Structures are given as structure tokens and as C-alpha cells.
């Protein structure tokens, strides 16, 4: 799990401007500067045994990446949405992540609504799911 987490961190920092990275729970996360990412492991599944066929691999590795940007005054989201498109494409097309750490990778993007209690931020939750190899 820590290898996948570190790999995601490296990929995002190498390909995008990220000014603050935090590995931990999103509820503890505070953006010290923008753009910021919070990488939160969600689930892992391991089993002992001889897995001869592809189908026998255990699925269930799940890592959430929260990408947070400071919202502009007019709250227009268009550049943010295209940034998220780029990020999910980059993660999906990354051969190291696909080949070395996960198989059958699947990415779910959720544009979460800003809570009124929190700062004026745009938040996207990118969930990366796959099976560990």
C-alpha cells in the first residue's frame, strides 16, 4: 500500500503543480497552500495462497486522492474540471501504476460540494481502485 501511495504522490508532483501534499485522513487535512493533494488509503485486501489465474487476484485496494484548489472569486469551475480530467488521465495512463502496483485500475472522480463550514475551495475526490500484484 505504501508503495502505491508514494507512487501516486510522485506521479502527481512530477506532472502537476502541487504546493502541498499530505498523506492521511481528509478530515485532518488543511491546505497549507494551493493546489494541494491529500492521499488517503481506504482499503486493502490480502490473502495467502497460490493464485494461478488472473481471476484469483484479490481486488479491493482503494486509495482516495483529494485534489483541492482555491476557488476564484466568481467560483467558475471550468479550469478546475479540465485539471481534474488531466489528472485522472495521467493516473490512468501511467504504466508504472498500472503494471507494477495495480491491475485493472479504475478511477472514480467525485466533484464534492464545498461545505459551508469550510474554506472557499474546489474539491475533487479521485478514487483509485485496483488489485495489488
Amino acid at each position: 500500500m505504501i508503495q502505491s501511495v508514494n507512487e501516486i504522490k510522485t506521479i502527481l508532483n512530477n506532472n502537476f503543480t502541487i504546493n502541498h501534499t499530505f498523506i492521511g485522513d481528509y478530515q485532518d487535512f488543511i491546505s497549507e497552500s494551493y493546489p494541494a493533494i491529500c492521499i488517503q488509503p481506504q482499503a486493502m485486501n490480502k490473502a495467502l495462497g497460490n493464485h494461478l489465474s488472473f481471476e484469483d487476484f484479490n481486488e479491493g485496494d482503494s486509495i482516495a486522492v483529494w485534489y483541492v484548489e482555491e476557488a476564484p472569486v466568481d467560483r467558475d469551475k471550468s479550469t478546475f474540471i479540465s485539471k481534474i480530467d488531466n489528472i485522472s488521465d495521467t493516473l490512468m495512463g501511467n504504466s508504472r501504476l498500472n503494471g507494477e502496483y495495480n491491475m485493472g485500475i479504475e478511477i472514480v472522480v467525485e466533484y464534492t460540494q464545498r461545505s459551508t463550514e469550510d474554506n472557499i475551495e474546489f474539491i475533487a475526490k479521485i478514487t483509485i481502485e485496483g488489485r495489488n500484484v
Partner: protein
Amino acid sequence: MIKLLETLENKIATISVIDGIRPISKIEELKGFDRYAVTHEIVNDAVYKDRKNRYTTPIFLNTYSNVDNGEIAVLWLNKQIKELLDEVDLTNSDIQTYYVKIQTSTPQPEKNRLLDCWQSVVMVEVRWKEL
């Protein structure tokens, strides 16, 4: 907390018409102020997101004016303060602010007998940490 208040005082002082800014406990020092004045009053300092050394602090900014049409002038001062502080970044070498949010203000001014002027209130919430 001292650093936050210093930063806030310095920021508000950039509105040049304001003659004095004092904590509410030293309001007496504002007696006889020239046209516009402000006092600040800390409500509490709750911990922000359960994280050490991070706070979310609501602050009352009491605004005063003793010009001829003071009840209107004090609302004008409220507007200046709101425009100055809403979503501003107060980060400097002493503190970092995550968010400065104007919460509410009283559009109905009241007469302040102590300072013989009109008074209104702007409530601002600051999320910050000391560096």
C-alpha cells in the same frame, strides 16, 4: 492570538479614515475620537479541524462614527471593512491565515452613550495558525 490581533489591527488601519482601533476592554481610550473608530472583541478560539496550533476565531468588530449623519456613516464604514477583509489573505511572518470570512453585520446602528456616537457590528471569522 496577540499576533493575529496585531495583524488584524494593522490591516484595518489601512482604511485611512479610522482614527483609532482598540480592544473592547480599552474602549475608554477612544473617547473624543475623530469621526471613525473600531474596537475588536474575541468571541472564542476553537481548534480548527481538531489540529494542534490551528484555530478558528470569530471576532466582533464594533464600528463607531460620530460625524453628523453617524447612523449612515457607520454603515459605510461597515461596508469598507467587509470589502477589505472578506476572503483576504492575512498571512505574514507571524501568522498564516487559511480563511477570513465575513459572517454577519448589524444593519441597524445603535447609539453608544459612552462614546456619544453611532455603533454597528461586523462579525468576522478567521482560520489561522501561528508560525
